[in-house]
């Protein structure tokens, strides 16, 4: 029964990934032969273990290294900001509750309703040279910042689109903490900060890790948000690898970049798996 989706994924994702890996190290025969014929600057392997010439191309490219740095910085900053906002909203919802807390969590979930293409476009126009933010500044005679087509806009867009999932995850983790524990800590004289730090965060560790890692994995490979809101260069790798494939017609180099993102995402994913299994062990489920 579990086989159909696994077979589907193996055929339409797993198999192309293997093909892509072979292509990136110079195996240009079989199904790869058409791409190898059309593409520019394709390296062919002349032995059985392949060639790493395409990897050397990419990793000696200053532009790529700059884009890699931008990708990492945007990912880390976005994940940290999203986690802080989600924790703030989640803690407020858990400790105080009330209609204001509901309004806050309701607001944070709104981006889930909006397709990413539209969100990116809306954010670009809001922070652009003739957007709302600059208009408000101009109203009081100030020169406002133009964030459209900058890395800052990418971070804003990434935070905007990632917030709902993180808030849902963290809030549900915090809601699951029994009232009795919080009451006991409060009776023992613990303040808001102390309760948040030594009870809520350790108890909701898994949901917080999931929120953080999923945000990071989503941001690191994103294309739409940086494509619409970001600068032409330097930009995030999702955009760069698309450019290498469509504009520069260098498929091999494009695939090398995709593997770079995938390995980074896999590293983040490993942290998520580790956290899940640790909690499963603690609760005696393994």
């Amino acid at each position, binding site marked *: 029964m579990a086989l159909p989706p696994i077979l589907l994924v193996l055929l339409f994702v797993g198999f192309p990934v293997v093909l892509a890996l072979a292509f990136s190290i110079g195996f240009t025969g079989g199904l790869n032969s058409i791409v190898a014929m059309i593409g520019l600057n394709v390296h062919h392997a002349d032995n059985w273990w392949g060639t790493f010439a395409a990897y050397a191309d990419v990793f000696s490219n200053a532009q790529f290294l700059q884009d890699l740095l931008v990708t990492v910085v945007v990912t880390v900053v976005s994940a940290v900001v999203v986690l802080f906002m989600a924790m703030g909203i989640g803690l407020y919802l858990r400790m105080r509750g009330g209609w204001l807390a509901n309004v806050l969590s309701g607001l944070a979930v*709104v981006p889930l309703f909006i397709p990413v293409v539209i969100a990116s476009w809306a954010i670009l126009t809001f922070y652009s040279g003739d957007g709302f933010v600059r208009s408000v500044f101009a109203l009081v005679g100030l020169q406002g910042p133009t964030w459209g087509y900058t890395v800052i806009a990418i971070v804003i867009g990434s935070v905007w689109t990632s917030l709902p999932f993180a808030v849902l995850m963290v809030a549900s983790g915090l809601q699951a903490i029994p009232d009795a524990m919080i009451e006991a800590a409060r009776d023992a004289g613990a303040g808001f900060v102390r309760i948040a730090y030594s009870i809520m965060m350790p108890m909701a560790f898994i949901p917080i890790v999931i929120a953080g890692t999923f945000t990071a994995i989503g941001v690191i490979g994103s*294309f739409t948000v940086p494509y619409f809101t970001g600068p032409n260069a330097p930009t995030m790798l999702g955009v760069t690898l698309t450019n290498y494939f469509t504009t520069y017609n260098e498929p091999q180099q494009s695939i090398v970049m995709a593997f770079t993102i995938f390995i980074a995402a896999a590293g983040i994913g490993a942290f998520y798996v580790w956290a899940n299994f640790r909690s499963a062990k603690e609760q005696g489920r393994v």
Partner: protein
Amino acid sequence: MAATTEQIAPETAAVRLGSESIRRSDGRAGAVLGKVLIAIFVVFMVLFILGPLLWLAIHAFVTNWTFPNLWPDGWTMRWWTTVFSDPALGAAVQNSLVISPIVVLCSALICLPAAYAFARYDFFARRTFLVGLFATNAFPKMGLFATLASLFYALNLMNTVVGIVIVQIIGTVVFMTWIPAAAFAGVPRSLEEAARDAGASKIRVFFTISLRMALPGILVAAVMSFLASFDEAQGTYLVGAPQYFTMPTEMYTLVLNYPKQVAAVFSILLSIPSVVLMLAARKHIMGGQLAEGFQIR
């Protein structure tokens, strides 16, 4: 009578709130500071989340907007007729509304049995498969552009609706497997066993108990899958262009070639289905069905 209760209610609420905040914080000053901070944060959130959406939505109804005015130059419905009279845009709307339901249905048929299996049976490498399904989302789809295209050409799926459906299903597999799996796992085994003891057949137990109790989770999965399919642009463009355009792929060309107002109209149209669906499933999504689905068990 009604008036008096209305007067009393806010007072008692205020007294209750007040006493609680005194009890919970160090003193009056701390409580006031906290309230001011919260107020600032709420205003910031309203601007941050809703600001861009409102700003874009208003653009759909304006003739022109001169910087730095906070009020547009004039109002018009002209852009709506532009969108509705353009055959390419109309076709994109139609394609999206036909393809996405097909994707959700196929995805459910393929994934729901698997979700049940993941929840109820312990089989070889079960967790590895669960994580593996998620890994498909972590690989940047654009990186598969070249080899996926080769595969689709070899299978004669290029520029076909079937090809688009397959590409979009890939993006929904995680939602359709993980969230219903958690929902099925949440159905108490004792209930199923009780029904079996009462003489119900296995199939009857599945449809009247397991499936019915897991329905909220499946509903959330279906909504998330619909959105993922409706939102999918890169794979659809790769497989569908230049034969088939859906709304998101059309949006890419739109923002480059049309005035801002047309893109705004299109954005509103593109948001309607997702907003309607999400509002319908809001209770279950906020209620933790989504969050529950992403914890590996």
